[in-house]
């Protein structure tokens, strides 16, 4: 197969002149096109500072857009809202790659407090300590919010808290009552599991959902694992030296709890392995009464099952109620997380203005606007004095819980930790590992990536 022979005699080539003319013409069109596109990129001229804010998810975008005109007026700046992809993974990927390449927007949110350490350690976040200290709203913040806004490795604050997610166990009160299953606060894990077995046996439906698996991403840790760890026999994830204690008895307890759920078919497994694992259990099974207890945050009553959701649960207040998460050997706790705290890009060209914007977004009216859309609670305790708060009836309880809410402390490497938890729980879901194997998998994964120095090697 000699290629040369296949080409036609070049002498047979028809005409070049016309083609040349066409090329010249199309070059001219191209120039016009190029001009148009460049014009669309052209900077808005004017003396005003332009602050770019990254925002994602349509509810959040809507909330932000209502706030922007006021902020622009108050601060005398121009704000450009940059829409980011909604799925949490895509948002974070885009944010991190942009922060690394230095072209991220001036102001953005950090979706979960656990991510602050990793972002700050990488040098992406501007230090907000002084700004916050000088801020009149700082003292009004829930203490937990103040604590979670700090990075563990340098104790500096990196975000302006806006809202908190208060997470508890949500259960279908109506169905439990109908089947005569107790709706009392479970005393300990055993009690909770027994309640689950009763649900399974009496209703034939799935009892308990603790997010798990790779596709749920960070949720496997934040919405599942940490609730268990916090109530385990050894709830501390970090050693005094700030190393992860992954071979602790607490981690084993949490994974064993998952193992029990899976082995006894108390939790749906297949949906957790699907691409968007939350859709079936949370948006379909729970409203349909096929799943009766799940961990969730305050957002669930708005976002997942509220009147505007995909599958609204009518008379939500009567049908759905909450328990605190019990501890393994008694005790109970409410988990909270600092979500969507406002951060400033360390490489921002106008950091001073950006800090002002971030603070302004931490104000009560801004956080109430967000809280309304998302179903989270404002991070500031003085929010309840705000006129908009009265309308958020379903959040009042949760807001009141803030003072007793807690969180599991993580440090740099938390994204690896969360990925490790996702893998460990995935291995339980697929039945590849038992709890001990999953724990070892978690340990190996994290130490492989973060290095042995970041992980406590000792078994206990």
């Amino acid at each position, binding site marked *: *197969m*000699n*290629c*040369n022979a*296949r*080409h036609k005699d*070049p002498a047979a*080539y028809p005409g*070049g002149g016309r*083609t*040349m003319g066409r090329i010249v013409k199309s070059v001219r069109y*191209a120039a016009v*096109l*190029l001009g*148009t*596109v*460049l014009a*669309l*990129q*052209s*900077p*808005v*001229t004017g003396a005003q*500072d*332009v602050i770019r804010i990254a925002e994602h*998810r*349509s509810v959040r975008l809507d909330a932000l857009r209502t706030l922007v005109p006021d902020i622009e007026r108050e601060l005398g700046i121009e704000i450009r809202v*940059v*829409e980011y*992809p*909604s*799925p949490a993974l*895509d948002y974070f990927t*885009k944010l991190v*790659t*942009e922060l*690394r*390449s*230095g*072209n991220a927007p001036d102001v953005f949110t950090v979706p979960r407090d656990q991510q602050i350490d990793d972002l700050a350690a990488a040098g992406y976040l501007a230090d907000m300590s002084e700004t916050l200290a000088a801020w009149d709203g700082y003292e009004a913040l829930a203490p937990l919010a103040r604590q979670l806004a700090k990075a563990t490795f340098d104790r500096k604050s990196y975000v302006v808290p806006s809202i908190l997610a208060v997470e508890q166990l949500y259960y279908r009160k109506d169905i439990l009552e109908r089947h005569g299953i107790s709706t009392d606060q479970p005393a300990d894990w055993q009690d909770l599991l027994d309640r689950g077995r009763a649900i399974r046996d009496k209703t034939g439906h799935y009892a308990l959902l603790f997010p798990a698996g790779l596709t749920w991403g960070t949720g496997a840790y934040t919405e599942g694992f940490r609730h268990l760890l916090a109530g385990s026999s050894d709830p501390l994830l970090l050693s005094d030296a700030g190393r992860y204690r992954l071979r602790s008895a607490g981690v084993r307890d949490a994974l064993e709890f998952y193992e029990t759920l899976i082995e006894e078919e108390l939790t749906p497994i297949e949906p957790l392995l699907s691409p968007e694992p939350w859709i079936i259990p949370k948006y379909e099974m729970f409203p349909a009464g096929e799943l009766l207890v799940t961990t969730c945050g305050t957002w669930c009553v708005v976002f997942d099952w509220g009147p505007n959701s995909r599958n609204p649960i009518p008379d939500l207040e009567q049908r759905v109620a909450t328990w605190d998460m019990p501890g393994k050997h008694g005790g109970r706790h409410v988990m909270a997380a600092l979500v969507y705290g406002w951060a400033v890009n360390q490489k921002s*060209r*106008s950091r001073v203005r950006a800090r002002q914007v971030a603070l302004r977004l931490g104000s009560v009216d801004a956080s109430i606007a967000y809280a309304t859309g998302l179903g989270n609670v404002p991070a500031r305790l003085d929010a309840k004095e705000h006129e908009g708060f009265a309308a958020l009836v379903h959040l009042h309880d949760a807001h009141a819980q803030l003072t007793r809410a807690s969180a599991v402390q993580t440090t740099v490497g938390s994204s690896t930790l969360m990925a490790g938890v996702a893998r460990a729980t995935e291995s339980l879901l697929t039945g590849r590992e038992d709890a001990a194997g999953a724990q070892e998998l978690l340990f190996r994964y994290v130490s492989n990536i973060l290095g042995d120095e970041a992980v406590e090697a000792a078994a206990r």
Partner: protein
Amino acid sequence: MAGGATVESAASQRRGNLRAYGILLFISFYCAVPFLWVLVASFDAKPSQFLRWPEDVTFSNYSNLFVNESGMLWLLNSVVVIGIATIIVLVFAGLGGYALSRTRAWWKAPLLYAIILVRIVPPPALIVPVYKVMLTLNDGVNATINAVVSDPSQALFLSRIFSFVDGYLGLILVLAAMQLPLAIWIMKTFFDAIPVDYEEAAALDGASTLQTLRRILLPLALPGLAAAGLFAFISAWGDFLMPLMFTSSPELQTLPLGLFRAFLRIDRIDYGFLTALAVIYTLPAVIAFSFARKFLTRTFSGGVKG
């Protein structure tokens, strides 16, 4: 079924033809059905994710494209980015293919083998190192811009254009680079078939190298350039990985990324807008492919074999 034009009895011929119709109908069904939804939904006033016959047929999804700023912007971005990348490929591959065809040097054969190997480097394997390379270049570019320009909005504008990450320049160059190995091969084999006599005749006629290139070689190479350009265009136009890696600003998004991101707005997907845009996005590739088809065999056998 094997012979094609050989003598067969009428009955067995008919039987064979029937079987051929059956097979072709099945394969055509397989190939065509997935398109139905995107086509039908783009004319549906209330489109959804499912294929259904529209109750109201409308062209507004298409006319909206011209109103909807982002759709138009993605399209323009695609045209500009892929257009410039294709032109770069044509110029570089045209010159490079010619040079490789005519070079006499001991390293020519090793170089050509190396280009074959470069051609089969899987792009996903390059994303991390390319990303690092682009980051380094990007830091350089932006440091320069910040040093030279003080006005932040102007600096932003310049960095949009010249940045290697999230800028036109980087995306264009990386797209062009990925298409180059194949294009160079096409041009090299094409020039191999053009006798060197033309250039020598031109040299004796007193033409300079540039004149020879412009007045003799360029017209002769147009069919080869057409093939190389079409393949580069199709491949770059459809590429998803590079835009995913190297663009993030909405102002820079090209069609594949824009569509994808719009598709990720799970709670608010405008299927009419997306399907119409997807149809528009697909058309240039289909048209280019219908032209490129006749080059396909030669290109791939030529690209791998000399």
